[in-house]
């Protein structure tokens, strides 16, 4: 009857072996068929599939606990508030924040970047100041900074990539100056899979007292995150990339900074007192959660955290490393295939182009074989420009993917060569 029906399993007590077949049974979508063929879902960087426990947590919230939060005195409202705040504490644990008030529920990573850009950064940027990002960023970690720079007369600086898809750290360091007021970098690139040396980036930025925001959308499903160890000022994640519902995410912000920031949006919930003359804002995180939040989504998000921790992120990372190595070897051996993004530290993302075959055709033919991948620019057009390609095909793996599915991708590529005669 209560919200916390998802068994909390200590990662240390999880079974020693990584049983991918057992894990796959937790995800209803993984047993789907398309065009009469079993689905091989290799588009996890776009969004991930959801385990039964997440689907049930969200559905059960609607069945048994649906009421608004922080408002009513009645039983359901109390239950809803407990579930929502319980989810916040789960997210606190997930990123290892020191205080639950440092977790702001947002719509997703994009929303979080916009929040920080238009409140925190906006108040600190003067004409001539600079914001530093990298050449790897997703549009969502470019455009919000462009908007605020334009508004404040500030300048966006971009640290270039080397041929392997790694940020040129010498240039990154060189671009940090007394004019730099903000650094925003992705933890893991969505288009190439590069794992950025964020520890070093934060260290370099902090040496010049520059605050850092990390876009962790792609890192959360693959890696253990520890914002206290990182020491970053802000860290953003999206629920849907990490096996939770769409439409919800979390922004970690250091408490003293959140407390000093103006609200992002006005409305109910984010105030202490309101009169027509003036309004006193609520303390964080409520200050940044105007209006009725995505309560069911947050509850499902919490269930996704439980699920991931029960399996154990260290186990996930180790399994995916093996899968990535296998896929990289197989893919590299296909004639005419060129991998884009060969960083030394990589997550399980394989971006590639095939000689004389456009990514869109690759996507259609693989789809007919039951293999779902992403084709296009992956909301990272500057990355495509860097490598002189209009688009790539991208297979992005999760811990529920198998070597057999990688084999089906490779077999699908043979089919493409057959159709196109290349």
């Amino acid at each position, binding site marked *: 009857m209560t919200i916390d029906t998802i068994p909390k399993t200590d990662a240390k007590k999880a079974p020693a072996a990584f049983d991918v077949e057992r894990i796959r049974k937790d995800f209803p979508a993984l047993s789907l068929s398309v*065009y009469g063929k079993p689905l091989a879902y290799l588009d996890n960087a776009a969004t991930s599939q959801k385990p039964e426990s997440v689907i049930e947590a969200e559905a059960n919230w609607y069945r048994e606990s649906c009421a608004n939060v922080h408002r009513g005195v009645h039983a359901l409202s109390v239950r809803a508030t407990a579930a929502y705040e319980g989810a916040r504490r789960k997210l606190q644990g997930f990123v290892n924040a020191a205080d639950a008030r440092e977790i702001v529920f947002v719509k997703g990573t994009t929303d979080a970047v916009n929040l920080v850009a238009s409140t925190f950064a906006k108040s600190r940027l003067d004409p001539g100041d600079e914001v530093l990002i990298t050449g790897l960023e997703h549009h969502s970690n470019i455009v919000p900074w462009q908007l605020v720079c334009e508004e404040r007369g500030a300048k966006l600086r971009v640290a270039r990539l080397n041929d392997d898809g790694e940020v040129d750290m010498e240039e990154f360091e060189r671009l940090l100056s007394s004019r730099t007021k903000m650094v925003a970098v992705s933890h893991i690139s969505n288009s190439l899979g590069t794992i950025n040396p964020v520890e070093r980036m934060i260290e370099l930025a902090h040496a010049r007292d520059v605050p850092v925001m990390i876009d962790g959308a792609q890192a959360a499903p693959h890696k253990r995150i520890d914002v206290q160890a990182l020491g970053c000022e802000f860290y953003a994640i999206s629920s849907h990339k990490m096996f939770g519902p769409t439409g919800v995410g979390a922004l970690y912000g250091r408490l003293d900074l959140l407390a000093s920031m103006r609200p992002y949006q006005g409305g109910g919930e984010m105030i202490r007192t309101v009169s027509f003359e003036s309004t006193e804002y609520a303390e964080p995180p409520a200050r940044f959660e105007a209006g009725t939040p995505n309560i069911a989504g947050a509850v499902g998000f919490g269930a996704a955290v439980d699920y991931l921790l029960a399996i154990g992120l260290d186990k996930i990372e180790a399994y995916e490393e093996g899968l990535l190595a296998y896929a990289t070897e197989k893919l590299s051996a296909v004639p005419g295939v060129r991998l884009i993004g060969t960083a030394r530290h990589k997550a399980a993302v394989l971006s590639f182009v095939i000689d004389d075959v456009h990514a869109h*055709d690759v996507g259609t033919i693989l789809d007919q074989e039951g293999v779902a991948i992403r084709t296009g*620019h992956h909301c990272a*057009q500057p990355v*495509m420009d860097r490598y002189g390609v209009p688009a790539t095909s991208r297979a992005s793996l999760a811990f529920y993917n198998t070597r057999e599915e990688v084999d089906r991708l490779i077999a699908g590529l043979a089919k493409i060569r057959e159709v196109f005669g290349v």
Partner: protein
Amino acid sequence: MSDLTDLYQEVILDHNRQPRNFGELVGADHKARGHNPLCGDQLNVYVTLAGGGVIEDVRFDGSGCAISKASASLMTEAVKGKTLADAETLFKSFHELLTGDPSVHAAASTELGKLAVFEGVREFPVRVKCATLAWHTLHAALSGDTERVSTES
């Protein structure tokens, strides 16, 4: 009939490999740039008109998938020497072939000639934009709309 060979017919693969009328038309009096943001396809269509509104020459360049490239190539062959009005009618029939009621377009397919090879695209709705990009761009070039054409607009 969503078989791959219905989509990637030999004629389409041939025009993808060796696009006809490919490359800039120097001295074109009409041109437009088409863009499909979904997949990054970009193509330019160039037209020279003769007296009486006849398409004297038409060429294209750019990058795109097999469907968009073959469609542009076959389009240039189909509209060269035609009047503007005839080219517009052909575009309508072509669009009907890809998106309309199959029982209606059967009659139109005779006038479409080689363009009928794109019939298989109707079974792949996400690819319809690839096949129509060149036509939208041609339309923009001829109607003097020199702004970039986007399949998402």
